[in-house]
């Protein structure tokens, strides 16, 4: 069942300790797989635990919830890993794109610098991987420009020199995808990535995510509450409800 899966979640359970000491169950027995070159969508109403499946095992919640079960990425178990090890997987192994790029970009830093920062993180983690000419400020700038083009944005220099607020919502979301790609991840989690974008631009972002799976062979997890959008993008669909996998995965 896990053949070829880059990510394999089995029996994932998640509890949030609440202030008054009562344990709030968030996830119960979740199974999920993601494969390279495939878009696997998770649909469900808000609060059903779609994002928690990924944010919690990656250590991205401020309050440390208790996690049980298994979250294996490229064969490595992430449940029980410390912050240092998780940090090395984030960005370069598993990258994320969020709902509202204006709030998820640092508002006071130019987009180009934020992308270059991600490129530098990836460089720092591949001591032998990159040739000498692939490093340095200029090389990062060129790479950032190339990434901006690859997500379908013209005028890369203008986008890179802009502050997030100076870009339109659609452009900003594409720039956020470019930033996610800057770490050369194998798995991309798009968490409601098209929900804040208006209808016309939504299709464009959907096509872009689709092409990342088709052309780059990326494994894409497409989290959405919009069944129509999911039908347009996904190879497989799972439905979540109340912290459990309700239906699926269905192949489309």
């Amino acid at each position, binding site marked *: 069942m896990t053949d070829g899966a880059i990510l394999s979640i089995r029996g994932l359970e998640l509890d949030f300790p609440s202030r008054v000491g009562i344990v709030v169950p968030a996830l119960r027995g979740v199974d999920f797989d993601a494969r390279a070159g495939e878009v696997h969508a998770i649909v469900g109403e808000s609060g059903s635990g779609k994002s928690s499946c990924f*944010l919690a095992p*990656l*250590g*991205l919640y*401020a309050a440390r919830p208790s996690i049980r079960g298994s979250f294996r990425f490229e064969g490595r178990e992430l449940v029980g890993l410390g*912050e*240092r090890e998780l*940090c*090395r997987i*984030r*960005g*370069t192994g598993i*990258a*994320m794109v*969020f709902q*509202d790029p204006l*709030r*998820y*970009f*640092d*508002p*006071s*830093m*130019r987009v180009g610098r934020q992308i270059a*920062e*991600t490129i530098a*993180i*990836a460089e720092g*983690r591949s001591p032998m991987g990159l040739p000498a000419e692939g490093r340095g400020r200029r090389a990062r700038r060129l790479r950032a420009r190339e990434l901006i083009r690859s997500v379908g944005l013209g*005028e890369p*220099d*203008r986008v890179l*020199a*802009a*502050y*997030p*607020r*100076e870009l339109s919502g659609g452009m900003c979301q594409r720039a956020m995808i470019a*930033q*996610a790609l*800057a*770490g050369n991840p194998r798995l991309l989690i798009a968490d409601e990535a098209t929900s804040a974008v208006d209808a016309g631009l939504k299709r464009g972002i959907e096509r872009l995510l689709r092409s990342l799976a088709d052309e780059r062979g990326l494994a894409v997890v497409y989290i959405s509450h919009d069944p129509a959008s999911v039908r347009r993008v996904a190879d497989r669909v799972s439905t979540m409800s109340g912290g459990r996998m309700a239906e699926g995965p269905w192949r489309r």
Partner: protein
Amino acid sequence: MRRHDRAGAKRRRDLIAYALGKAARLALTIAVVAVLAFALARVLPGDPALTAAGLDARPADVEAMRRSMGTDRGLATQFAEWALGLARLDLGASLVSKERVSRLIAQRFPLTLELALLASAFAMLVGLPLGEASATRKGGAADGAIAFLSRLALSLPGFWLGILLLLGFAVAIPIFPLFGGKDLRSLVLPALALGASNAAMLTRQTRTAMLDELSSEYVVAARAKGLSRSQAARRHALRNALPPVINLAGLQFGALFGGAVVVEQVFSLPGLGRLALTAVAQRDFPLVQGCVVVFAVIASCASFLADLASAAARPGIGRAAR
């Protein structure tokens, strides 16, 4: 490329318009302070002529002294003369020593400026890192210790802390001079006494602003792209937390000159603060007014510069942040 230049030009134009508006308000502030300084000096009980002539002087001598000081004329005349002088940047002459007020102030100003700069630098060098540390370790032992220290620093008055510092580091362990000289070493203890409560306030402000920023979505995103908690805090949250901290530091810098009045007395430093104190004791109206105007100009300029700096520190935000 050209559109990017245009955006840059618009940002510059915005900043210039903002600076001009602030400068106009600065001029208004100074005008109001000038009126208040004149009025308050006259409201003080006591008569400079009587002080100068001595309490047992004959009424005729006191009257002669008043005439020679010019305080026998009407208040309106005195004010008009002083205000006209002020507009020409002339602060008049001291009633007591007859020296130009601007000269007296210029002699004392550098020492107090150095003291204030040193105290301000100390406050920021301590306040920013401690505030950041206590925000990133919220609820931990370090956070508690820093909170305790800052409460202590806030509750100790500057002159009391000054006396403690003198007893500790000039008497018991004599590494700093007991009496004020003109070198930097003699300014260290006064600067600590003057800056301690500011450091505590900056620690608090930094902590609050950092906590606000640390709960922002962009910090989650920064960690999602592979930064550690502390990297995300330092590279992203801290710079967004800076504007209110810079604003506070600017306000504090202006207030430091007022605080210097007491601290200079404790450390017997011949600065602007002691000059103002002596002037008040002698009812030397022009000198009191001159000192008050200089204090006001410094306080206004400092908060003006801090506003500019905090606007520049958050370039992506635009007008909304002001």
